């Protein structure tokens, strides 16, 4: 176990001690004990930076289940490290924010920090595992810990609803991802991502390639809240705000992005991948940004904005995968999409984290998150105002913040799609920049809405629960750090390009690099009067016009009825699946033994008949048949007549006697077919069972004793005739095709030689196959004790009652 392994699981191990701290040091906020861990981890992961910049990958292996090829291989390359830094960095900020956000004496801090640490460890595990199964394990752990965190205030209905929804959707995706992982294993014979990437050039010809691709993408899309699976994210806003900031903006929702980026070398060459990732990303981008405007809750807007931004990153990754089709690196202009994706990933984490924290502050200090009640907070909360100014303007893509840069690069990437000459992009490629542009207008619009409706306008003190005032310093420090990063990355974007973006690109597009080469990333503020600049200007212009006229057209959202929204659809689906399965179960689990017997016998007939038919097993061969004598005919007549009469007699007593007649005739058959032992036993047993039947019927309750004939039912008749015919057919064909001779000759020869007996039946029963007899008498003993128990215990119970 190397230091890297310990670093990955350290949050999990550390979470064990949290309840101890909580119990013993109740006067100190538990968060202070948690804080050092992410900080230490951040420092530890920063120490990898020099290594990563030189394109070195750190791989540490530890055996877990070697026989199945499942080893805990930790791999820190550019992509993994980028995520690890995000997780630990924002993790540290979120923990310090939560110290001020969650009250020490009101909340169950021990559970909160345990869940949070579980989540942090799981996230680190996802991004730093090279083994797909290990990654899957951590993946599910994020789903579970996220479920626990969303339902942190479990006494609220909405929290439980949101937690359940996110659980169902993300676990659905996680399981389908597991399917994809298994398909990959079938194709390549390994779980290691590195080795799968080595085999990728031949992989896309495999039959299972597309199913595996779709399964993996389902996992990524559900986790990253892509269309149409984004519906869990707005409901996950019921979680405490630090959780929303951490999980649902910066880290967990990017696990899907990570997965797509990580597996781009495997699946990226396929056109299915391009269209699915880029297409779904585009739809999510537009959909999320359009519907964000409808929201009135601060966190609701932020949730939809997260969905939209994730869609943007996803579409960039999809477009970036097309770069794999162009070999020459020097003029490969399409890698810019991947650069933009990674850059925006970092930017989004910074500004969205800070915006969530701001939303938390406003909620904390005014008592509401509804933008209809807020307004004019600028003068009360100047620092918060500044933070959100930077955050929202960066989100809208305005200079001089980092959002502007990634938006420009986004436009660049989308415009360059039109130059691609694969996948029919010559014709439909032009849609990409147009959709991107429209979505950006809406992004601008909701960013402005978020900012101006909260901080400007009229102050409405009568609608607020508390008198607004500035937040405590401790609560402000984390968002201040994040927005200063927004500015720093905005002004000096090339700080990141060498150290983080280029190595991360190398992990996403490894096949484009020769030995010793690396991606040259240069992000510049100004690149002349290109089309992107005009697009941005258009976004700002149209955005301002739309914002000014917002009250006039906001009603357009009412046109789409609620019935057709995906949220409603999900609820209907849940209710429907429950009521349908309930109905189905009620339909066939009737509780009556009669119908169960009908099912059993109907399937009996069906399966046996189909087998007879398909295997062409039915034969009729009369060569091995002995002659029939007069006695057999007479006895058969007896059996047939008495069994058919049972069906038609009125009195139960008569049917018992007829049954006895059948039994005695059978014993006569034994006599006829020279089986004296059987005849004797059959005679006695028949007598006893008839006697027992008589006892039973004598004791039937009075009101049930009206005697009627058995009612005729067509299903019963069909089923019973069917069973009879099938069994007859099977018996005849089994008799007609005997493959081997009987082994009875051995018994005939050895009964006296080996076992010193002359009654072969008895010798077989007690000697050759005495084992069966041993257990048959055990069965008898159990039956008698069972009868004894049933009758005696019933009597005792009656005495008690």
């Amino acid at each position: 176990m190397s230091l890297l392994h310990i670093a990955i699981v350290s949050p999990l191990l550390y979470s064990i001690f949290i309840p101890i701290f909580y119990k013993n040091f109740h006067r100190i906020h538990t968060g202070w004990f948690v804080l050092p861990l992410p900080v230490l981890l951040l420092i530890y992961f920063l120490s990898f930076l020099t290594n990563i910049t030189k394109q070195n990958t750190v791989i540490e292996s530890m055996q877990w289940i070697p026989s199945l090829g499942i080893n805990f291989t930790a791999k820190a390359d550019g992509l993994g490290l980028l995520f690890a830094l995000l997780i630990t960095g924002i993790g540290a900020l979120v923990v310090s924010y939560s110290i001020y956000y969650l009250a020490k004496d009101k909340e169950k801090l021990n559970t909160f920090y345990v869940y949070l640490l579980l989540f942090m460890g799981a996230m680190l595990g996802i991004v730093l595992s090279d083994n797909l199964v290990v990654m899957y394990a951590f993946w599910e752990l994020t789903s579970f810990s996220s479920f626990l965190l969303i339902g942190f205030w479990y006494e609220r209905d909405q929290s439980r609803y949101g937690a359940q929804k996110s659980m169902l959707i993300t676990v659905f995706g996680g399981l389908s991802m597991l399917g994809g992982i298994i398909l990959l294993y079938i194709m390549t014979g390994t779980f290691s991502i590195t080795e799968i990437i080595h085999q990728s050039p031949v992989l896309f010809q495999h039959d299972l390639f597309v199913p595996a691709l779709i399964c993996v993408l389902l996992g990524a899309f559900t986790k990253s809240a892509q269309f149409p699976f984004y519906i869990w994210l707005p409901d996950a806003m019921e979680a405490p705000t630090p959780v929303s900031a951490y999980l649902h903006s910066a880290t967990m929702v990017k696990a899907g992005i990570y997965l797509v980026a990580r597996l781009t070398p495997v699946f990226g060459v396929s056109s299915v991948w391009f269209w699915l990732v880029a297409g779904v990303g585009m739809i999510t981008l537009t959909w999320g940004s359009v519907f964000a405007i409808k929201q009135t809750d601060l966190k609701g807007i932020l949730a939809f904005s997260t969905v939209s931004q994730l869609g943007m990153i996803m579409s960039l990754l999809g477009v970036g995968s097309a770069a794999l089709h162009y070999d020459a690196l020097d003029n490969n202009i399409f890698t810019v999409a991947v650069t933009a994706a990674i850059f925006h990933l970092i930017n989004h984490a910074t500004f969205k984290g800070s915006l969530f924290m701001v939303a938390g502050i406003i909620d904390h200090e005014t008592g509401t998150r509804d933008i209809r009640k807020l307004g004019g907070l600028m003068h009360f909360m100047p620092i918060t105002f500044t933070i959100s100014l930077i955050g929202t303007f960066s989100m809208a893509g305005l200079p001089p913040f980092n959002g502007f840069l990634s938006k420009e690069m986004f436009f660049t990437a989308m415009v360059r799609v039109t130059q691609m000459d694969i996948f029919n992009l010559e014709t439909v490629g032009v849609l990409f920049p147009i959709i991107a542009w429209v979505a950006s207008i809406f992004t601008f619009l909701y960013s402005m809405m978020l900012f101006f409706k909260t901080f400007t306008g009229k102050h409405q003190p009568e609608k607020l629960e508390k008198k607004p005032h500035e937040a405590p310093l401790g609560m402000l420090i984390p968002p201040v750090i994040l927005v200063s990063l927004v500015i720093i990355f905005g002004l000096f974007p090339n700080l990141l390009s060498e150290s983080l973006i280029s190595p991360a690109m190398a992990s996403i597009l490894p096949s484009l690099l020769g030995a010793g080469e690396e991606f040259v990333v240069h992000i510049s503020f100004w690149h002349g009067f290109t089309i992107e600049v005009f697009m941005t200007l258009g976004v700002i212009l149209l955005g301002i016009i739309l914002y000014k006229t917002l009250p006039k057209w906001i009603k357009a959202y009412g046109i789409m009825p609620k019935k057709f929204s995906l949220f409603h659809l999900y609820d209907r689906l849940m209710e429907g699946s429950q009521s349908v399965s309930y109905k189905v179960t009620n339909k066939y689990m009737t509780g009556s033994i009669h119908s169960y017997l009908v099912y059993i016998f109907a399937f009996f007939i069906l399966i046996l008949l189909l087998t007879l038919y398909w295997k062409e097993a039915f034969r009729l061969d009369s060569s091995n048949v002995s002659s029939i004598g007069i006695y057999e005919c007479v006895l058969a007549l007896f059996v047939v007549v008495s069994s058919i009469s049972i069906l038609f007699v009125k009195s139960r007593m008569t049917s018992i006697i007829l049954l006895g007649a059948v039994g005695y005739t059978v014993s006569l058959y034994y006599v006829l077919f020279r089986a004296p032992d059987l005849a004797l036993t059959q005679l006695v047993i028949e007598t006893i069972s008839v006697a027992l039947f008589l006892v039973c019927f004598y004791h039937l309750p009075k009101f049930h004793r009206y005697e009627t004939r058995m009612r005729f039912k067509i299903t019963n008749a069909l089923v019973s005739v069917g069973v009879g015919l099938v069994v007859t057919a099977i018996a005849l064909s089994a008799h007609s095709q005997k493959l081997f001779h009987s082994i009875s000759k051995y018994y005939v020869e050895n009964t006296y030689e080996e076992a010193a007996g002359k009654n072969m039946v008895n010798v077989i029963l007690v000697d050759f196959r005495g084992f069966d007899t041993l257990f048959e008498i055990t069965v008898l003993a159990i039956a008698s004790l069972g009868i004894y128990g049933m009758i005696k215990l019933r009597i005792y119970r009656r005495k008690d009652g």
Partner: protein
Amino acid sequence: MRQPNNMILETALKLLLFFIVLFSIYIFTAGHYYPGGGFIGGLMTAGAIVLLLITYDIKTVQKILPVDYRIVTAIGLLFSIGTSAGALFFNVPFLTHVFTHVEVPVLGDLALHTATIFDLGVYFVVIGVTMTIILTIGEDE
């Protein structure tokens, strides 16, 4: 309870009972060579006791034959399993029977077979089971 006068039945039974029991023992012992064996022999012995039950009542029969039939069942199982497991002591597979001829002074040449002990177990189990069932149902009100 009304006590019917069953003089003829009782007298007939006194005579018949021994024949039935003797016949059942014959069937049991002859099982290895002729039709019969532990199962049918046991059923027939049980039948004799049932005849007793029909003629007299349960309490009287319990007085004549103070036997707990569940214990009879257990003894029977013990016989059968014991015979089968006994083979293990002689380093042969479970349920290996042995037989031998023994010259006994009075009875002459006797064929002794461990299968008979196994069958005796079957015999007891069948008696025990049949009687337990009939007595339990009979005692139930």
